[in-house]
């Protein structure tokens, strides 16, 4: 127990002093990694807890970002308000889409989630007048105080830490236990009195909301958002991240997302064939550590 606490304290300490100790480049990349970590954690609420493999999760990430961005750019809304509104819009979308998706299971669920994700992608791409289409929504500025890299980094760090803590609490709550029960055996869960569809929908909405937070952080980070953020390949990236780390561990998505980003960052400096090497890494983990990389450190628990 104390080992874990020490490790956690160590990580937090490093994250805390990063802007002071490391060059600005590192801070920019660290911000990017933190945002992706949040996105991956939100997906794991569905994958790891509820056993719902969504390949359309990027849609909510994207809606969160576009929602916040459009409010700031076209309606002049202040950043804090937009930052809250983005995730709300994402949650709303998750409610609608989730309503249809949770009625399906297994492979059909995966494909319907993918279909809806691509429909969101299409809407963003085609609605050029509002979203900017494939040229993207650009010129979305954060508050002047948060514009410098270090300032924005601390902001993202604070939000991501808060969301991580929240997701941890959610996971260890009765709601989280209900999700695990459903994942384990839906029929038995229903028998015990859990309203399966309702709980699954709630998980879908909560996961979508947190993905929306990540998206909102992204739009101010990059000063804009692009339709590719809603594409199923972006969902697949998050999916790879959570499975790389291990879906049965709370920290699995964190480790997986960080590793995924680091490989995507470092390898292109040496070769244009970085997807090949990323694929090899994924393959090795899938073959030799299917429980995820964290299984090197700890045995997988029954629950994250």
């Amino acid at each position, binding site marked *: 127990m104390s080992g874990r606490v020490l490790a956690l304290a160590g990580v937090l300490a490093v994250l805390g002093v990063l802007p002071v100790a490391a060059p600005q480049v590192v801070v920019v990349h660290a911000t990017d990694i933190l945002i992706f970590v949040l996105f991956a954690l939100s997906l794991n609420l569905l994958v790891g807890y509820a056993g719902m493999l969504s390949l359309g999760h990027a849609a909510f990430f994207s809606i969160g970002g576009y929602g916040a961005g459009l409010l700031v750019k076209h309606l002049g809304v202040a950043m804090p308000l937009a930052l809250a509104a983005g995730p709300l819009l994402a949650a709303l979308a998750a409610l609608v889409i989730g309503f249809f998706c949770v009625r399906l299971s297994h*492979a059909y669920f995966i494909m319907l989630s993918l279909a809806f994700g691509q429909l969101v992608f299409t809407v963003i791409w085609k609605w050029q007048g509002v979203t900017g289409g494939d040229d993207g929504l650009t010129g979305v500025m954060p508050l002047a105080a948060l514009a410098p890299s270090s300032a924005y980094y601390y902001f993202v760090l604070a939000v991501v830490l808060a969301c991580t803590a929240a997701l941890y609490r959610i996971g260890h709550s009765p709601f989280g236990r209900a999700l695990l029960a459903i994942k384990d055996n839906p029929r038995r869960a229903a028998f015990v009195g859990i309203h399966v569809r309702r709980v699954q929908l709630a998980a879908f909405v909560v996961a979508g909301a947190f993905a929306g937070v990540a998206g909102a952080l992204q739009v101010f980070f990059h000063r804009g958002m692009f339709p590719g953020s809603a594409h*199923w390949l972006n969902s697949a990236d998050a999916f790879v991240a959570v499975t790389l780390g291990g879906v049965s561990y709370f920290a699995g998505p964190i480790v997986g997302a960080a590793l995924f980003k680091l490989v995507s960052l470092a390898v292109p400096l040496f070769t244009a064939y970085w997807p090949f090497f990323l694929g090899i890494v994924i393959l090795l983990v899938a073959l030799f550590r299917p429980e995820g990389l964290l299984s090197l450190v700890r045995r997988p628990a029954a629950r994250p």
Partner: protein
Amino acid sequence: MLIGLQIVSGLVSAAILFLLASGLTLIFGVCRVLNLAHGTFFMLATFLAYAGTLLFADTSANFWLTLVLAPLVLAGLGALMELALFRRIYRADVLVQLLPTIALIFIFADVIRFIWGLESKTVPFPGGLPGAIVVLGVPFPSYYAVIVLAGALVAAGLWVLVYRTRWGILVRAIAQDRDMSAALGINERAIYTGVFALAGWLAGAAGVLSAPLAGAALGNDVDAVIDAFVVVVVGGLGSIPGALLAALLVGMVRSFGILVIPQFAMAFVFALMALVLIVRPTGLLGRRES
């Protein structure tokens, strides 16, 4: 007249889609694996078709030669993939099974880039075919007849294979009830390898046949696998007749959709898939999983 023309062009698209989707639906129906790398096999086959035109440049029958050889190569690759990768992870969660298929997409795309470069390639139509076939006033290249014929032949061949051979009985048994089949002593492992090989062969045939039309281009893998999954899901996972029906449906939706709402062509297949899954959650001819 336009309607007739669009029906014909829809048929052509449907043939390729069926070849592509049938392998995928087989893999899912029998082995319960969602093979996201299926489109990669298709793309590899298109590049092999291009390579074939260079390799057998002297012979006029080079296309037919490639059509025979390339699917066999891909069948072998499929079997290899099953033996080396999937065999190890059947016990694992379905989400872990998705990982190696995603990895293969990355790996093969770069291998193809390394060998053939970044530029797309065209593949010549096979020689020795008669000129255009005039249908409803429009001269269709006679090659299109080859595609439709090939699609029909493969569909018939698959039907025979699955419903009229011993191997087919075993395949259907495993698809229907895996545990019972194992209890009856059916050698699943050999069947699984065979299914992956057959799926590879089908993807290979689809790729070579589509190459003279669509050429070989990086990025075809992702488009192909999405198309294949849409057809498979709309038809019902694991159902070959469903795949045939869905392929026709998707082909027609594309053909007629561009007449009615051309601006939303990029959304057709996803809207169709969403619609079918909402109304019929297990696809048109799919069965609810026990």
